[in-house]
């Protein structure tokens, strides 16, 4: 009887150990945060590249000075891949929205939108600077 009791306790111990190992495994799995796959950094880099390329010879500031929103939109369309949706808003120094028409290829409706802020200085004789907010998303 005594021997049987000891055996039962050992089996019970084994099951408790099993329970412990499994619970540790389950808890550790839930604690592990899976990093979300996103192309946010790539879009960020792409957007910055495009704005820098446009600003390199002062064309970006010239478009804004002249209020040439169509030119700005078409230039962005030419430099960004067609699968990238964009929406650019131009603000003055006092954060007033300047573009009278939307500068976008399509409405940016996505759960993952990257937003880039860029400060552009006009090369005009009267010094001005503008704040540009470029939203980018991948078309689905």
């Amino acid at each position, binding site marked *: 009887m005594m021997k049987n009791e*000891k055996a039962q306790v*050992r089996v019970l111990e084994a099951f408790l150990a099993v329970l412990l190992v499994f619970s540790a495994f389950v808890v550790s799995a839930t604690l592990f945060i899976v990093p979300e796959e996103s192309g946010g950094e790539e879009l960020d880099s792409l957007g910055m590249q495009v704005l820098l390329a446009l600003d390199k010879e002062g064309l970006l500031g010239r478009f804004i000075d002249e209020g040439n929103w169509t030119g700005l939109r078409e230039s962005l*369309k030419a430099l960004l891949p067609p699968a990238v949706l964009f929406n650019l808003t131009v603000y003055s120094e006092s954060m007033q929205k300047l573009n009278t028409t939307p500068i976008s290829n399509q409405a940016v409706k996505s759960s993952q939108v990257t937003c880039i802020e860029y400060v552009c200085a006009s090369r005009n004789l009267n010094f001005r600077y503008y704040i540009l907010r470029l939203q980018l998303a991948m078309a689905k």
Partner: protein
Amino acid sequence: MPTASIDTFFACSLMTILVLSAMAGLSITLFPHSTTSYNEETEERFLQLTKYILLNTGSPENWGENSSIVPSYFGLAETNGIYALNIDKVSRLNIENVYALSYSNILDSLKIKNVAIRMSIKPVFDVQINMTSNLDEGNETVYVFEIRTVKSGLPLSTLVKSHLLVEEQVYSKPYLTLQNGYGVINFSVSNSLSGKATLIVLAKHAFDPYIVSFATYPFQHNSQESLVEDGVFLQLSPLNYTLHVSLLHAAVNVSKAYAFSFNYTFELRKTYENESFLKYTIPRLQDISPLVLAVTGRNSTNAFVECVPYPQIPLETGATFSDSTRSNVITHQQIIMINRVLYEFTLKSGGPTT
């Protein structure tokens, strides 16, 4: 055997099996995440490689323009340029240039091991030319061409300038606006001329003057000979604002050389000539445009025109990634500027199979 020993043995076996299975399960769960971390490191490393190539001039700094120099350190940047590449360094990546660097030269000067790379540079948009009709009207033949300017298959509004060369004759058309990236041009070419002719089209983005592209379209005019590709009679290698012309056949004679930019056309001045080699000076223009250089000449019987762009783009050089010997192939794209014109640079990098 006592019952207790059997129970202990059973309990220990159960414990061992469960611990092992737990360890195996854990390693299976964590493996993808450890691989992701490895990939992120690899991606970062290759991103830094792209930046290094585009932001460094290499050593010596003038390795591009001097055809005899193989760089000890690789870099494509113009001196004092940010993402601005040197026209000659880029041209020396094109394998059609007689002074091109070999792939091993590039890898040696990059001082990296166990990495394969493939570089490509191309204009931001494409110009497509298609001949739709040719009508013989006695003294002359009328050619009609469709021109399309597209980016990734989507039309792009542009302004185009076109020239047609036959023998030594240059026909030019006024600027044409392609509203939806489509237009038609026609050329009437005298039937007193014959041989391989070439249509050259330079196109500029309707709003951004720094986005320029071009295309050439060779065809036979007034001749029954089959059309031969560029590079059959001559090897054209522009470098350091000099066009180096190597004659590939003894029976070939060169008559004239021209440079076409978006706004200007020049006849090039010959500075050197021997039996198999000629040199022409290329003008340094302020025009925001690539140059298309055209050389006219004759083989034993027929006239021909051969063309080369300067910078010698589009180009693609390096390893091929079509086989399965490489893994972790990462692609980085960057908009770059060469002589104030924007292009797309792509670097594919890959390490050995892990």
